[in-house]
């Protein structure tokens, strides 16, 4: 008899000590071996996921136009992603443009079917982040001392129209201090402290009169607690460059 499937699942999680009879069977059974290996792979991957993995980014809407143009497709109509979410709205908003409307609606219907059927990772539109108006999200790369860390930063505008920097970060290392966000010029000679992260995320208003274009490098540091010096600790976790 094959090993109990629930036992294999718990073994994959690393929970159970293998019973001698299970071990004996698994060693001699390619089926149970393969099953255990696959489940273990799933568990390993799942345990590697970070908050960052929960977010899909949509490419900019113009990308589909570029593909259509390169392939010289006949129906080179632009259908921005945003139209996908509102089934009737697209049609109502463009009463004069029949072909475009029909196309939009067929897309919307397709998307609705996909959402209902739960097909395709890209169909989960509420998780797909729309490209922000001000800039595209930039990836923050880990410094060598911080393997596995990463993050994203995006420059956008809040509801009042003020420029804000939105940052998210994850690191497999537990925080031993507070994590502070900095902007610096390209030579990293001048740095400005933007504020501390709130857990894995942070939103920082760009001060009035600060030209972000001159401060494009973003850096997140680990600062000691209490943070007695206003300067950068020198211990950078991730770093990236805003596309400004």
């Amino acid at each position, binding site marked *: 008899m094959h090993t109990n499937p629930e036992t294999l699942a718990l073994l994959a999680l690393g929970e159970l000590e293998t019973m001698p009879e299970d071990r004996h069977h698994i060693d001699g059974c390619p089926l149970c071996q393969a099953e255990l290996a696959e489940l273990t792979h*799933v568990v390993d*991957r799942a345990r590697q996921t970070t908050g960052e993995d929960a977010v*899909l980014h949509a490419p900019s809407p113009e990308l589909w136009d570029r593909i259509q143009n390169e392939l010289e497709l006949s129906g080179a109509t632009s259908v921005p992603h945003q139209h*996908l979410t509102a089934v009737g709205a697209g049609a109502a908003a463009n009463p004069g443009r029949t072909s475009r409307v029909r196309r939009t609606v067929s897309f919307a219907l397709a998307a609705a079917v996909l959402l209902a*059927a*739960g097909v395709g990772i*890209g169909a989960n539109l509420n998780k797909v982040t729309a490209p922000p108006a001000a800039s595209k999200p*930039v990836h923050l790369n880990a410094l060598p001392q911080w393997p596995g860390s990463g993050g994203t930063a995006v420059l956008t505008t809040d509801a009042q129209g003020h420029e804000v920097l939105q940052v998210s970060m994850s690191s497999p290392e537990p925080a031993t201090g507070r994590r502070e966000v900095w902007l610096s010029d*390209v030579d990293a000679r001048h740095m400005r402290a933007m504020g501390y992260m709130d857990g894995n995320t942070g939103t920082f208003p760009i001060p009035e009169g600060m030209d972000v274009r001159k401060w494009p490098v973003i850096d997140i540091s680990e600062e000691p607690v209490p943070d007695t010096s206003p300067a950068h600790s020198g211990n950078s976790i991730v770093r990236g*460059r805003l596309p400004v």
Partner: protein
Amino acid sequence: MTAPTDDERDALVAAFLSGDETALESIYKRYSALVYTVAYRSLGEVTEAEDVTQKVFVAAWTGRKNYQPARASLPAWLMGITRNKIVDAHQARSKQRRIRTEMASQVEPAAPEPMDVAERLIIAEEIARLDKVPQEVLRLAFFEDLTHAQIAERLQMPPGTVKSHIRRSLIKLKRRMEVFTDAYES
């Protein structure tokens, strides 16, 4: 939540193979965010990630005659192309780097393997789609390292129920991942 029927999948693949442009559009809508996010996470740069995404869908369309539905699912085939285009982009980049010195403040970590990134994205999404209870069970098992007995106690649930949640959810994650990564046995 139901999986797409074989008929729906087959119809899309047939339309794609016969050169139906709307099929390419549907495929782009379904998978462009995954392709783009994998490229973005692997290359760390928006422009390159968009270039890769463009190349993937262009290559899929121009090379559709090479796609054999019996050998791999359509998303698995797309992810294979994605992986190749990302590797190409990394190679082009290191060639460039030899010519031009990198800015001192830009630190380039070892790039993650595209398929590992894809698997993490797919798993994270599938966990998010689980019902509340199985999702909480998995979260405790994966990220808080609780045993099934501890989870049963925490959630006031019979241990047998916890075990079957774990088993069923792991199988779901595995199947979902296979759709995107497995080439079929030939």
